[in-house]
């Protein structure tokens, strides 16, 4: 073999090896297996009812049959388009929920109830449950998802795995675990020991006795005269270190601290508040705008916050405090939120990791 041939062969081999390393790239460029734009869902608006709307649409074909079942007082079964088996309850016959031979209390049907439904203790619903009238759950039940055109009452230590939406109120007895999205068009009421993630309702009450519920939120400690959003334009005071606002002091405008912030009891901030470290609000304080901490936040008893309440790590809210008002709902958001009984929020409470309804010490 001549030297020239050997050199050419060497170059060819080197070129082939180089091309070999580019083969996956060339193949992808030619075949365009992953050449679509990233999936940004243009129509998704983050509505908490997204899944309940989807399920209502999915189950809408059954409503005519359900009406017939209610009229005749019968039950019916069948299979939905996607292969799920359904059970239509035209009368409050919960014996139909479980097959007679079932050793475990597990309901495998998509349940569609046309009458008031009282669920026995301990049943697990593997599929969605739709109730056109009030749903009253027994203790220790587990629901994949609930949609109700009326009220929902969850028994003690029940679980909702994905979502629940009610046209009227949702009441959860003690020690319920409410994962995912829980929403109501009127009110959500959680008793002590409940876990939650995302709640949305015009009024969200924690552990209040019935007598106190009617007054909670109706009489704010200080009624702002301007829309909460107007405080977004308030002038701000920027503090490089820690700041303590004395008790009962009235502060016009917004406050930003690069350190911690302590708002004394009964102080009134007519603006928004941001702290880059721990934020403490003592009892009876009022913040007209938003309350934001880059770390943790502790809101004392009987405080009132007008705008969004946001902490990047944790929020604790003591009894009697109110976030937002009925007319000006707001958001309380943090990875971890602990809310004492007696707190009322208006709008959304969103605990990315876990929220707790805790007893007043």
């Amino acid at each position: 073999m001549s030297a020239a041939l050997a050199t050419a062969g060497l170059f060819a081999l080197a070129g082939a090896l180089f091309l070999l390393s580019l083969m996956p790239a060339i193949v992808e460029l030619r075949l365009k297996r992953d050449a679509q734009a990233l999936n940004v869902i243009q129509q998704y608006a983050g509505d908490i009812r997204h899944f309940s709307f989807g399920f209502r649409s999915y189950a809408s074909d059954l409503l005519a049959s359900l009406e017939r079942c209610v009229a005749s007082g019968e039950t019916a079964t069948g299979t939905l388009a996607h292969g799920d088996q359904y059970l239509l309850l035209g009368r409050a016959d919960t014996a139909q929920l479980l097959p007679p031979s079932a050793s475990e209390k597990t309901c495998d049907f998509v349940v569609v109830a046309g009458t008031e439904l009282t669920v026995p203790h301990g049943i697990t619903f593997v599929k969605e449950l739709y109730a056109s009238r009030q749903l009253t759950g027994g203790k220790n039940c587990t629901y994949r998802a609930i949609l109700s055109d009326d009220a929902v009452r969850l028994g003690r230590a029940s679980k909702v795995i994905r979502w629940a939406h009610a046209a009227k109120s949702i009441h959860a007895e003690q020690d319920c675990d409410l994962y995912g999205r829980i929403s109501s068009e009127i009110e959500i009421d959680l008793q002590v020991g409940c876990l939650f993630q995302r709640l949305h309702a015009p009024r969200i009450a924690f552990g209040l006795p019935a007598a106190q519920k009617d007054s909670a939120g109706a009489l704010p400690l200080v009624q702002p005269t301007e829309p909460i959003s107007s405080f977004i334009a308030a002038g701000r005071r920027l503090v490089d270190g820690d700041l303590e606002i004395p008790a009962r002091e009235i502060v016009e405008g917004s406050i930003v601290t690069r350190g911690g912030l302590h708002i004394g009891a009964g102080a009134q901030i007519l603006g928004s508040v941001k702290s880059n470290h721990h934020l403490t609000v003592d009892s009876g304080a009022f913040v007209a705008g938003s309350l934001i901490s880059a770390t943790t936040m502790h809101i004392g008893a009987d405080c009132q916050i007008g705008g969004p309440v946001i902490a990047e790590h944790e929020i604790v809210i003591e009894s009697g405090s109110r976030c937002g008002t009925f007319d000006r709902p707001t958001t309380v958001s943090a990875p971890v939120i602990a809310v004492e009984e007696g707190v009322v929020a208006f709008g959304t409470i969103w605990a990315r990791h876990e929220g707790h309804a805790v007893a007043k010490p």
Partner: protein
Amino acid sequence: MIYCLFAIVAVISLYTARHYWFTLNRLFGFQRHPYIDTDTADWPQVTILVAAHNEEKVISHILAALMGVNYPPEKMLVVPVNDRSTDKTREIIDRFCQDHPGRIRPFHRTGGKGGKAAALKDAMELVATEVILIFDADYIPGTGLIKQLVAPFFDPEVGGVMGRVVPLNVGTNLLTRLLDLERSGGYQVDQQARMNLHLVPQHGGTVAGVRLSALREIGGWNDDSLTEDTDLTYRLLLHGWKTVYQNRSECYEEVPETWQVRIKQIMRWAKGHNQALASYGLRLLFGKHRATLRERIDGFLLLGVYIMAPVTLLGWLLALGVFYEGIAPLHGVIALLSITAYSAVGNFAAFFEIAAAARLDYTRQRICLLPFLILGFGVSIFSVSRAFVSQLMAPFTGAQFHWDKTERFRTTP
């Protein structure tokens, strides 16, 4: 010569370490999205400025999209800033105005200084709201985007907000696919890591917002700047305002489909960035202002990214010079280890970042195109260096900075 080379290697190593820090933070660190869950609020009035210069191919898309968002209509005013368009942009905007009375108030600009910043500056006469959002005309906002971009302004420390830009025309050709990967790395990793680490997320001037009182405090739009977004980022920072990045506030855009357009675009970015470096670099590092130490360092490094292209070229030339001079920069095993370590780690820092971004986006096959990024890298390094040289020569050649509009490729009017 050798010490100059050492200095360049040190700076490149610093940027390499920064790439890895950001990437590892995105893969394993605490992710900050503090405002994204604000879905209920007493929403403030907002003005949405849509910068448009000869945008007949795309303007109807963004106006239609903005009319469909879930922000309260009575609290939102769309102001298309028609900057001296000579095509049908004006007619299209006026037709939308008629179809949506009270929701769109056009600003037809027929003269004045060129450039987006100058147009926005003039359009401010129509702005009376505290929150201003800005979009370029080729963007297509989704239903929930406006609320997401407004939510951070409930934080009184926030002066600017920036969403994520997602290329729409990904599959057109090799260039669009490479730009998709670059954007992915830049936003999914770089911007979000800066947000996570309390550094300096960059205002992008589109899919973005600014607080009116902050803008007034810093002196309004700087119409001398070629990149008003970079300029805004640093002036906000120097005045104690934060810019926040919202990675989940995604918006489609159109990326350049020809190399010629891409080169023009990146040269303008480079010149604007270098302008900002000259204006704010030293003041940011050593001046008396409200930025933290980490913001000063990261902000300076961010300002320096486009200078790194000519610096890298210079490093290559110096390395050749050193070699032919017969100077051994390091000796024996240390030299071998250094070269091997840099080949194994340093060269791949940016690629690692983009691969991590693709993973975070749950895409798979597009990572295969990673080797072709060397092509984009080569074009960028020479284009940016050319921009740098022309900037250096400008005082002697008398060349003026001018603003080049990025050409659009969408076909449906």
